[in-house]
């Protein structure tokens, strides 16, 4: 039934009516409403079901601390579970559904759990589902997982965009209540760079929730003035709808700005939310305080709310949860709720005050020294039972109860770096202690300054002090006056004797659960938390932690501070995964790198493979080829018989210059480079400090003091970084300068017996490519195509007569086209990484599979490359005894005894006879391919003492898949072992 609980006044725009649905029912509200305020105004108190017992629940609060009123907002890919109705800004067309219930919110079958609450107490998982052991994984866990959780996801992709960004400021003010506004005005007027962030869409904090917070002007009017002034300052950035969710190192704060959550659909191209990383020199936490509930029997019915929230709904949103509201409190502050409601014509049957000396309130009865001992109403409150001081009980009919156990400073951000709060006996609450994050200060209610007047003054003073630290002179802003009295409160945490009195509403933790934890010796707060799940819900126990601590303190006979407090961790409120991911999703997860011939390769319908961030052509299918092997075999055969071209730009290229360039290379390579003549290239092997080989490549000497080092594609960055480390840290005395030129040059391998003929058509005629003038391992700076500067290296990865030619990258595309055009007469083919891999296996060249982080130069058959005549990185440790045993692994070739068999990569090698187990392991296969030249599957692998075992047969096994192939150990150089082709 819809009832009109809309009041007069408020900060809602009655000219803009907004239609929305909740569980399929249509309602309307106004601009400025939240979903919760609009539902309350429509007479809806029931908004959700609790986590464990499926108890009917309505909103407890009017803010981000809400534990109860969680809904699923939107639908399809935009569906967002566990959205707090109390902060969901109403928009036209909003579609919300209740969650954790079936079949409907009013009739929820799982509410049966409530009947079995005696069995579902704290720790029941651990006690109930222990036996039989095998049932846990197969039965209990799936059932529990199905029953657990609140909202649901659709599994569809989120269609919206999320941004990330970075902001810098002198002073970050977190919270735009009285303290935050006073601080921002003070700092803004001083000319400091200020960011003022508030999670709410309306600035003002409690100033806009209270009547008469200020004496000479309404709170809302002063907020409007302050906001207008701040908005006019270029040095101030106002960020409403922005939750600062974490305090990180060095004054960095994480914040999420909800750019479009108040719209049905974000504007095209615009983000729904933005995660900001805010670099602050100083940060002022002005996050206010959170009211605490009182635990009493059945204190969780819809309509039972915090007194400050009821007041906020009435004053700011012009909404009341009911026409008849009882107040239950231990402090004067809650009396204002009664006054504000009565001023709006709402009936307040009584104020139940636990204090015997509570003051009177005009217009209603104050039941002093009384307690509420029970409530009624299945889907919403209908009455409360009061235990009067005189000893007898009285029922009060009401549809809402405004309760208040006092206020806790909102400490979340002060604890994010393990700051421990301290107890303030004056306000009976924890306040920030030592160990605040660097540069952080706290003001206002968050610091225990519980009056508006104190909040305003402390905010302004904190800003002056923070700016003073930064050398920015500032004077406190002129502030409005406020004459509110300090909170007068007598601690009261729970009504004794209650059977089920809720502390943590969201996770259904009651006073009884805390007692049980105590009884079972889970007394430490950390144990209490984990045993009962107190504070572990999406609200992080913002309204519950202190109540549970108080109960535990009572049970143990200790004080609350002695009992301790649990730590708050980021995020302060939940942050959506989409916002954390930002734009880096799907294809944009990481940047891609395109080779200079990418466009041309696309035109050839190349199949691409990701190699790191590079997109490399894997093979180039031709018409009629339906299997990749057909393309790869063709590319290999054509290259070996005529000529092929491959884009090898991805190999790392590092320019090394300086008077000590050669000595430097001697240091980083295992083999010597000092005597390499200008105009020559040498293969080099790099070792880690522990003597294990980690990269190989070539270094070309272009001048006495100038080399170009090439690295493998995968290790380009690592090698460059290691070289910089050697240059800067190990050998700073060496005169050597490094810079990457990987991107600057487009480089192509031109391989095959016709490669020289092809290049002769490209390279300008004054450069002689004959074997005599430009032999194997020659290099030089040349020109091509009529004058374009280029570099030519006669090196070969395929084992063929081969060159690598480099031109400035902008001409890479043109050179590829030119090479293919000039190569037409030789039937030149482009080849991809697959053919490249096949040819290097045929040639026995090690690659990443062999340089796998466990193998030494000796294992690779390159032991003699590790020079003993000079020092180099890894030299000493490569001589360790254990790395030089006679049966050390050795790189060998493997071919199947039966040519029809395949050599699977990754398999392990066992002797022909004997057991197949780890103890008898003879080695393993690192690379395998089908060789179209040999018409056989071939492989490379490491075999114990393998250099002396050529011709021996081994079993190549894969016990997991039941494979076993008989293979023969052969030379790793299947093709042209003498190297005649590449020297031709």
């Amino acid at each position, binding site marked *: 039934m819809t009832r009109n609980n809309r009041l007069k006044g408020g900060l809602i725009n009655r000219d803009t009516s907004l239609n929305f649905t909740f569980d399929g029912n249509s309602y309307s509200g106004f601009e400025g409403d939240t979903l919760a305020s609009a539902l309350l105004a429509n007479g809806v108190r029931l908004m959700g079901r609790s986590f464990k017992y499926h108890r009917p629940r309505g909103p407890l609060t009017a803010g981000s601390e809400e534990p109860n009123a969680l809904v699923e907002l939107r639908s399809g890919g935009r569906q967002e579970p566990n959205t707090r109705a109390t902060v969901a800004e109403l928009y036209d067309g909003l579609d919300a559904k209740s969650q954790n219930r079936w079949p409907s919110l009013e009739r929820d079958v799982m509410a049966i759990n409530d009947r079995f609450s005696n069995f579902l107490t704290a720790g029941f998982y651990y006690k109930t589902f222990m036996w039989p052991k095998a049932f846990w994984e197969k039965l209990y866990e799936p059932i529990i997982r199905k029953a657990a959780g609140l909202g649901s996801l659709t599994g569809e992709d989120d269609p919206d965009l999320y941004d990330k960004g970075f902001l810098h400021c002198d002073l970050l003010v977190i919270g735009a209540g009285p303290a935050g506004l006073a601080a921002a005005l003070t700092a803004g007027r001083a000319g400091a760079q200020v960011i003022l962030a508030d999670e709410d869409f309306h600035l003002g904090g409690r100033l806009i929730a209270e009547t008469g917070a200020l004496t000479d002007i309404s709170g809302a009017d002063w907020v409007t003035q302050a906001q207008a002034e701040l908005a006019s300052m270029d040095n101030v950035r106002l960020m409403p709808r922005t939750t600062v969710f974490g305090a990180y190192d060095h004054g960095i704060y994480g914040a999420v700005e909800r750019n479009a959550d108040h719209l049905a659909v974000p504007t095209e191209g615009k983000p729904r939310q933005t995660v900001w990383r805010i670099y602050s020199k100083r940060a002022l936490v002005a996050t206010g305080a959170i009211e605490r509930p009182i635990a009493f029997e059945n204190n969780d019915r819809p309509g039972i709310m915090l007194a400050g929230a009821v007041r906020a709904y009435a004053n700011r949103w012009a909404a009341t949860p009911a026409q008849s509201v009882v107040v239950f409190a231990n402090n004067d502050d809650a009396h204002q709720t009664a006054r504000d409601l009565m001023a709006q014509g709402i009936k307040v049957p009584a104020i139940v005050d636990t204090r015997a000396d509570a003051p009177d309130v005009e217009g209603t009865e104050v039941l002093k020294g009384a307690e509420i001992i029970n409530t009624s109403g299945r889907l919403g409150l209908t009455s409360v039972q009061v235990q009067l001081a005189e000893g007898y009980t009285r029922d009060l009919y009401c549809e809402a109860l405004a309760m208040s156990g006092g206020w806790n400073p909102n400490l979340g951000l002060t604890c994010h770096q393990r700051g421990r709060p301290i107890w303030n006996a004056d306000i009976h609450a924890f306040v920030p202690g030592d160990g605040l994050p660097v540069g952080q200060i706290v003001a206002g209610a968050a610091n225990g300054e519980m009056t508006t007047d104190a909040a305003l003054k402390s905010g302004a003073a904190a800003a002056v002090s923070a700016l003073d630290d930064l050398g920015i002179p500032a004077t406190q802003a002129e502030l409005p006056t406020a004459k509110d009295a300090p909170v007068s409160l007598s601690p009261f945490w729970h009504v004794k004797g209650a059977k089920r009195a809720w502390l943590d509403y969201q996770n259904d933790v009651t006073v009884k659960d805390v007692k049980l934890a105590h009884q079972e010796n889970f007394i430490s707060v950390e144990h209490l938390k984990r045993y009962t799940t107190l504070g572990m819900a999406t609200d992080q126990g913002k309204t519950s932690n202190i109540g549970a601590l108080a109960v535990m303190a009572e049970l143990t006979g200790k004080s609350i501070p002695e009992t301790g407090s649990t730590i708050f961790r980021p995020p302060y409120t939940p942050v959506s995964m989409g916002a954390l991911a930002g734009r880096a999703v799907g294809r944009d997860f990481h940047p891609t790198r395109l080779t200079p011939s990418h466009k041309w390769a696309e035109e050839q319908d190349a199949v691409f493979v990701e190699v790191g961030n*590079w997109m490399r052509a894997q093979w180039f299918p031709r018409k009629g080829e339906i299997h990749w092997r057909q393309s790869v075999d063709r590319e290999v055969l054509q290259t070996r018989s005529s000529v092929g071209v491959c884009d090898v730009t991805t190999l790392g290229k590092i320019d090394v210059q300086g008077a000590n360039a050669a000595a430097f290379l001697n240091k980083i390579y295992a083999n010597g480079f000092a005597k390499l003549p200008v105009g020559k290239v040498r293969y080099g092997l790099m070792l880690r400090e522990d003597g294990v080989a980690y990269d190989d490549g070539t270094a070309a000497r272009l001048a006495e003091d100038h080399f170009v080092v090439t690295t493998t594609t995968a290790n380009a960055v690592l090698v460059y970084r290691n070289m910089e480390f050697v240059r800067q840290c190990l050998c700073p005395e060496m005169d050597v300068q490094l810079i990457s030129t990987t991107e600057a040059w487009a480089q192509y391998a031109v391989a095959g017996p016709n490669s020289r003929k092809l290049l002769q058509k490209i390279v300008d005629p004054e450069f002689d490519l004959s074997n005599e003038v430009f032999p194997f391992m020659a290099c030089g700076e040349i020109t091509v195509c009529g004058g374009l500067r280029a570099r030519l290296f006669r090196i070969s990865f395929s084992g063929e007569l081969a060159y690598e030619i480099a031109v400035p990258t902008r001409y890479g595309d043109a*050179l590829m086209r030119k090479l293919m055009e000039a190569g037409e007469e030789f039937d030149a083919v482009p080849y991809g990484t697959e053919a490249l891999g096949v040819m290097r296996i045929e040639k026995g060249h090690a690659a990443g599979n062999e340089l796998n982080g466990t193998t030494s130069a000796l294992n690779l058959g390159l032991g003699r490359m590790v020079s003993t005549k000079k020092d180099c990185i890894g030299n000493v440790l490569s001589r360790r005894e254990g790395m030089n045993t006679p049966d050390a692994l050795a790189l060998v070739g493997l071919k199947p005894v039966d040519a029809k068999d395949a050599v699977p990569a990754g398999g392990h090698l066992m002797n022909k006879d004997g057991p197949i187990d780890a103890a008898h392991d003879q080695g393993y296969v690192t690379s395998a391919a089908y060789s179209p030249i040999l018409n056989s599957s071939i492989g490379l692998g490491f075999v114990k003492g393998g250099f002396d075992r050529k011709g021996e047969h081994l079993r190549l096994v894969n016990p997991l898949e039941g494979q076993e192939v008989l293979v023969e150990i052969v030379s790793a150089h299947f093709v042209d072992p003498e190297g005649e082709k590449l020297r031709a």
Partner: protein
Amino acid sequence: MHKLKPITPLGGATRRQDTIGAVTITEVVDQALASVAARNGQAKAVQRALTDQIGLTLPDVGKAADAAPFATFWMGTEQWMVTAPYDSHELLAAELKQIVGDSASVVEQTDGWCRFDVAGAAVCDLFERMSNAPVRSMATGEAIRTTAEHLGVFLWRLADDRIAILGPRSSAGSLHHGLLAAAKSVA
């Protein structure tokens, strides 16, 4: 003269320009680049040579300088990037090597980088979404080495409403995509 046709970092025959809202993103392809790294103990000699011959002052950390047609920004300890118009200084590295001789190592960097000049009133709003560099407090003539779109880049404040970003050429597409996305966000 060779007849090979160059392509731009984005793969086009000519530079690409996009205007989104009040922001214009222009692919810059007319500048040659060369790195100049002082040899050990030779920074002053490098500075002297460049000042004497082309009037260029080598800037301090985070700064840029210019002496038309040349400009330069700091890129590392005693290392600078020098730029000049490509058409007139295609062989910029060789030209600079002539000037500095053995006092510095000079490396051609022209095609190692892509560059986009982003212009418009919202230029800081845009780069705030790309990089953690404090772009709002960067004065004209400051250049910073930072990251954007997971790439190592330089940001160079050319004017109040104009910032150049230089990133690795092979990732020009990714960087450009990031710029367009950020431009749409702030449009």
